[in-house]
């Protein structure tokens, strides 16, 4: 037997940590630059404005609604794409990436066009129908914000859930079906619990993305104070009047809100899913 030699894992951690820290340092520097640029007074005065307060409320609400919707749609879609081979699968798989690719301006414009394109001879138009017959106007109102956020957030949620389901071994769903499950039960009772961390991650990413969303909202929902003003709009409005400090202060506020929400989600995730959802060292 060759004498036992101990190889160090330090190079591993150095290389991996070194590469990783590039990005972490970049972000810390970005935040530091922002903090250096603004002051606590800016922060407080921004917080005091009634527009900002109503904007915070609308933001948290709309982000939550669109993130929930995004996950609700993403989970079944990603599951179907991951588990079944059907004609048109590749097409759908490619289509769902399109909201990521479209420049924000065009995405907003497309939504606007979609809701206002007169169809046929009767000049039927989705928005007028919604406004006059259903009583639920979308364009330039809060539903437009949610829809704009949803479109992008959902694309990300689908990708996240797709990776999740791809990595979950379909074997336990199969075995569940031998025990009397329908496909639906195998999905809800076996696959979904295993995807717990993925769902949390998808929700997180959808929420964060919805929070940062700006271009499509500006075009599709407009920027009317107290009505379609979310925090990213507020930032832009402050920036437009030359109040950079305040714009940066509001962004930092967004970062704080996001951190609070993300930590809460993470806590919730660990609490609810516990160690069970992580593939354990000896689980089969």
């Amino acid at each position, binding site marked *: 037997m060759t004498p036992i030699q101990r190889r160090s894992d330090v190079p591993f951690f150095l290389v991996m940590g070194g590469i990783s820290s590039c990005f972490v340092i970049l972000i810390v520097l970005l935040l530091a630059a922002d903090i250096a640029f603004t002051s606590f007074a800016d922060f407080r005065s921004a917080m005091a404005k009634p527009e900002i307060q109503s904007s915070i409320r609308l933001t948290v609400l709309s982000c939550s609604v669109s993130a929930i919707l995004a996950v609700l749609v993403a989970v079944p879609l990603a599951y179907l794409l991951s588990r079944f081979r059907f004609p048109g699968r590749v097409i759908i798989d490619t289509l769902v990436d399109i909201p990521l690719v479209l420049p924000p301006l065009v995405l907003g414009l497309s939504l606007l066009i979609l809701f206002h394109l007169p169809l046929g001879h009767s000049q039927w138009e989705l928005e007028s129908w919604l406004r006059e017959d259903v009583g639920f106007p979308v364009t330039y109102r809060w539903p437009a914000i949610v829809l704009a956020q949803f479109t992008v957030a959902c694309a990300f949620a689908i990708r996240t859930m797709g990776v999740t389901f791809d990595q979950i071994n379909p074997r336990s769903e199969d075995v*569940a*079906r031998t025990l*009397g499950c329908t496909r639906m*039960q195998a999905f809800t009772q076996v696959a979904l619990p295993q995807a717990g961390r993925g769902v949390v991650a998808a929700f997180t990413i959808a929420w964060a993305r919805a929070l940062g969303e700006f271009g499509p909202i500006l075009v599709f929902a407009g920027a009317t104070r107290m009505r379609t003003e979310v925090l990213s709009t507020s930032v832009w409005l402050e920036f437009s009047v030359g109040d950079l400090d305040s714009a940066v202060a509001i962004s930092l506020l967004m970062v704080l809100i996001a951190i609070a929400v993300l930590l809460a989600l993470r806590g919730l995730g660990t609490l609810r899913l516990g160690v069970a959802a992580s*593939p*354990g060292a*000896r*689980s089969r």
Partner: protein
Amino acid sequence: MIRLSEITIEAGDFSLANLSLEIQPREYVVLMGKTGCGKTSLLEILCGLRKPTSGSVWIGGTDVTHYSPGDRQIGYVPQDLALFPTMSVAEHLEFAWKVRGASRKHITAQRERTAEMLAITHLLDRPVHGLSGGEAQRVALGRALALEPAVLLLDEPLSALDEQTRDEMLALLLSVKDATHVTTLHVTHHSGEAARLADRCLRIENGCLVEQ
């Protein structure tokens, strides 16, 4: 009760052609054979996880060849166990009844009964992560037994147990066989096991099913 007629299995280079098999209600059949001869594949065709290239599968007088596994009213203990990583042991034992929408009371009663039978009551609150090989195997067995299914398919269900526990489980399987109307197909490598349990013993040899 179980009837395979002219089943052909193909997977990669492996193939088994024209297998036919009939198992009477309440019969306990043990299936043996060299490693890689197709025992697991046969069970998976019975429970619907694998589609036969040709031939048909009958359970209880119904042609279930194209039925989904969930509709075949079987209990299956897979060789790789395939426990559900997010569930506790208790949830495993409750699973089959829960998906059938049984009453809470019934579910609890069945769970307790099964856990006691298999001597895993002390494990009920544990996640499957961290179970020892033998414990995991008994959980997989309990998950299938809890339902008292009409047909039981066991794929080396006792291979990870020490001799004493294996004897206890053998006795348990015998008592289940006597107490319920279950029809069982049991794959094993252990000739002692086969001798004690089998009403009839089959082997897969050179691609054919032969009686012993």
